[in-house]
């Protein structure tokens, strides 16, 4: 049968079925992604409950002016950027190293176990991670006990009550949670390398370390670059920042733990300053959009391919 004939005989019925299959997803996008975008107008309005979304007087950029004048906004912006940048530097190479090490493990079963157990933390709720953190880093907890018995510190370290530790703590938690997960994609790329290349290298007398350096690493280089760029794109919303700020932040570490996501929540849902919080969110969205587009552009330049 001729393919064109099949297509025409299916015609409208099938088009209708395809459209219906897409409809639930389309409605979800329209209602929960696109409808809220119209709500952004209140960032430029004097919102109050009685007038509704589209009533209220226009106030132009007043909310933004107030935001830039607020000391807590400056603190939140600084903390967000600092935490995201530290995490970017600390966490982006760890999965690469871990994948290279996993690939060298001699026993297949041991390798599988290591991979399974180190990936597991990725799937834990942040509530659980926060609870574990509090248990382990308690002044009387196991980490402080270990540090003291090794003679590394004299008294217990107040990991959660001292503002100076929070950024390091955040990055460490990311390392703990995401290194195993991040390694999966690199390991898959290394596993895909043609075995003939290894054999050729062996014939040429290359040892294990040289093989890693000259074959494995170049094979995952483009993946490293793409993921690095993607991470730069998400600097502002930076995955775990809000979770850490909300669940591990307290009155003692507030100076370093308070991030933009929490600032929005604080002003919006807790103090019910809806218009102001929407302005803060819009500011975040715009910066993150710029970063994402720039990242995508850079990836295109380097890799010759679009990420999305």
């Amino acid at each position, binding site marked *: 049968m001729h393919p064109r004939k099949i297509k025409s005989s299916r015609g409208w019925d099938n088009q209708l079925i395809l459209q219906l299959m897409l409809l639930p997803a389309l409605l979800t996008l329209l209602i929960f992604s696109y409808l809220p975008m119209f709500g952004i107008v209140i960032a430029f309005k004097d919102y109050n409950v009685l007038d509704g979304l589209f009533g209220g007087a226009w106030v132009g950029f007043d909310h933004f002016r107030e935001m830039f004048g607020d000391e807590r906004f400056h603190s939140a912006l600084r903390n967000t950027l600092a935490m995201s940048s530290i995490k970017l530097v600390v966490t982006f190479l760890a999965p690469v190293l871990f994948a290279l*090490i996993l690939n060298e493990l001699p026993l297949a079963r041991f390798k599988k176990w290591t991979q399974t157990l180190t990936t597991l933390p990725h799937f834990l709720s942040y509530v659980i991670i926060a609870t*574990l953190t509090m248990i382990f880093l308690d002044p009387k907890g196991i980490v402080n006990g270990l540090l003291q018995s090794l003679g590394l510190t004299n008294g217990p370290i107040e990991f959660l009550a001292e503002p100076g530790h929070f950024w390091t703590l955040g990055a460490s938690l990311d390392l703990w949670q995401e290194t195993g997960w991040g390694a999966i994609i690199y390991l898959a790329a290394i596993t895909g390398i043609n075995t003939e290349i290894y054999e050729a290298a062996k014939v040429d007398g290359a040892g294990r370390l040289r093989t890693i350096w000259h074959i494995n690493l170049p094979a995952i280089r483009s993946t490293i670059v793409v993921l690095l760029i993607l991470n730069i794109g998400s600097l502002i919303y930076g995955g775990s920042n809000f979770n850490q700020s909300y669940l591990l932040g307290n009155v003692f570490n507030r100076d370093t733990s308070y991030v933009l996501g929490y600032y929005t929540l604080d002003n919006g849902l807790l103090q019910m300053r809806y218009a102001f919080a929407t302005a803060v969110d819009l500011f975040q969205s715009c910066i993150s959009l710029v970063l994402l587009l720039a990242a995508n552009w850079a990836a295109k330049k380097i890799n010759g391919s679009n990420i999305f």
Partner: protein
Amino acid sequence: MNAIKLTWEDKAVNAAAVLIALVLLIVAAYPLYYVLINSLNDGADAASGNIYFYPRKFSLENYSMVFKQNYLITGLGMSVARTVVGTAAAVLVTAMAAYALTKENLRFRKLYLAMAIVTMYFSGGLIPLYFVLNELHLLNNFLVYVLPSLFTFFHCLLFMAFFRELPKELYESAYIDGANDLYIFFKLVIPLSMPVVATISLFVGVNHWNDYFVPSFFISRESLQTLPVILIRLLSLSEAQQQIQQYLGNHQSKVTMESLRYATLFVSILPITLLYPFVQRFFVKGMLVGSIKA
């Protein structure tokens, strides 16, 4: 390893790799093990500390206490309900959309794709979403767990990449037999796509099981709260103390607030720990396909 003779370099690399892997293995897994052994230890006895390798005074009382607390049972039930319903619905909606989007003859295909891509870059933000939920009477409604997360474009991309790999002949012979796309999707495509269905189900299911944001800020009714919210309350021990006092009354028990917390923690960790190793073999492959295609 084969009978090939190992050089000293091979041995050194092996030893270093095993050593580093062991350390990381312990660092990753020990906290969870610590929770397990403490949850299995008599509460009063555990208060003196120093339980690091195995339960000192074995007891299942903490767990029986967990399953006697009404608020924990309700939370557990609600977590299960939202995870099962939310995951099934989201996987179905996303897979159907992905199937339709792989069909070149779908009208407005480019427009739909563009609309979906925009949502990866830009969102209305928290407050406008809150208003929409309020208008639709979804606040304090079980459906707020399900509806907003029905469709995720990233998961859709993974489905699309998988569907495109399926043999073309599959569709063509079915079309000739007069089957429509709905029939083909349910009877032919889905049964062949179990690896990607399992992978996405795990991703979506984990998000549902772990989420604390929606119940914290979009739900205030106690009967709709999920396990993570209850865990947040147990985070502050003084509050946990109050809760326990409230439920224990004057009963003598060796369960302490801390031991109850360990047991609750482990109950919430367990489902993922059990499910995930089975799904793992699928998603390693799925991620690779996805990363190449996307």
